[in-house]
């Protein structure tokens, strides 16, 4: 999956218009970065990448790039 496709998955999870998120977008600036947005993100990462974001890891995320870095495809 290329970075554009991954970003699209994040945009869908965070209910934002496609093309609006950049790697350096700060999550706290996003209206959708609330507990429901975080839950959507957890679900997306679990479903597509078998990655589980636990609360302490979530709190450490600051930018969209931090999320993209979690989206590692397993072989």
């Amino acid at each position: 999956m290329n970075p554009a496709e991954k970003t699209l998955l994040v945009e869908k999870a965070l209910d934002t218009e496609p093309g609006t998120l950049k790697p350096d977008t700060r999550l706290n600036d996003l209206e959708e970065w609330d507990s429901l947005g975080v839950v959507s993100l957890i679900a997306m990462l679990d479903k597509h990448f078998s990655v589980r974001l636990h609360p302490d890891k979530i709190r450490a995320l600051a930018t969209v790039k931090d999320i993209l870095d979690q989206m590692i495809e397993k072989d």
Partner: protein
Amino acid sequence: MIIRHITYILPEKIQENEELAKEFASGWDSKKIFRKTGIRSRHVATTEKTSDLAVEAAKKLFAESGFPKENVDFILLCTQSPDHFLPTTACIVQDRLGIPTTCGALDFNLGCSGFVTGLALAKGLISGNLAKNVLLLTVETYTKHIHPQDRSVRTIFGDGAAATLITHQDGEPCKIGEFVFGTDGSGANNLIVPAGGMALPRSEETAIEITDEQGNTRSLNNLFMDGPAIFNFTLDTVPGTVRSLLEKAGMEIDDIDLYIFHQATKFMLDSLREKIGIPEEKFYFNMEEKGNTVSATIPIALREALDEGKIKKGDKLMLVGFGVGYSWTACIIEW
């Protein structure tokens, strides 16, 4: 031993998303609330207390079923918003219903796992020859714990009460099957009303309102829910619980005719259904006009599924309750 009858009542006042959207300080319109939660409206108790809702649900059960209330020999009442710390709300309900004073009665404090655990308690009482006709009341008014400006929970929870009659007649086979239980108190602080109990009595300090980073306001006297933590918990425990229960019962996923999970949020249910691999047509959902009524969600869903003709005699149902505590219980019943 069978579930002889189930019914439910909902408080009169209905709160639609439009009304909630007007009350919130910023941001959410009614379409957004629906999109995020799958809920359009929920019923909200105003002056009704838990015993009022319990009595109303029980009276409806006796009227619908024709079962004589004099034959009830045990009352189990599940709630996390009792009328008082003491006495037991079930005792008050016994008196108001006019159930014989020879019955046993107790409250038990569970939320989302309450109905299925209540079935287990009823099965135990009946199997142990301690009772024959158990009235299980699952009654919840979480909205009374919720701060009006806390969108994270106010959009999700609704109030409701269900009454279920579990009975046994000699020679009748047992239709309430295997159970799996689970408890993990490390999740206690993720769904909690911090103040008001003995650990932290209410005071001027506990009433201080704080607005969090997401713009949700609450005090220690109000319900707090860490949505992401709860979601992680359900992804961690529910799929394994379903598998354990199927294994215990010697069954496969396809052997179950209908899965009725605790109606937590639409998103959580969709995620769980997909993760476990349950086909949509076998997975019941009915939160749109009720919200999350905590321990009442499963019996309400069961009754609605029956009314919609989705359950026929002999069907195998899996009921899975999970949430506050953390606590989770699952069982298989044959209708």
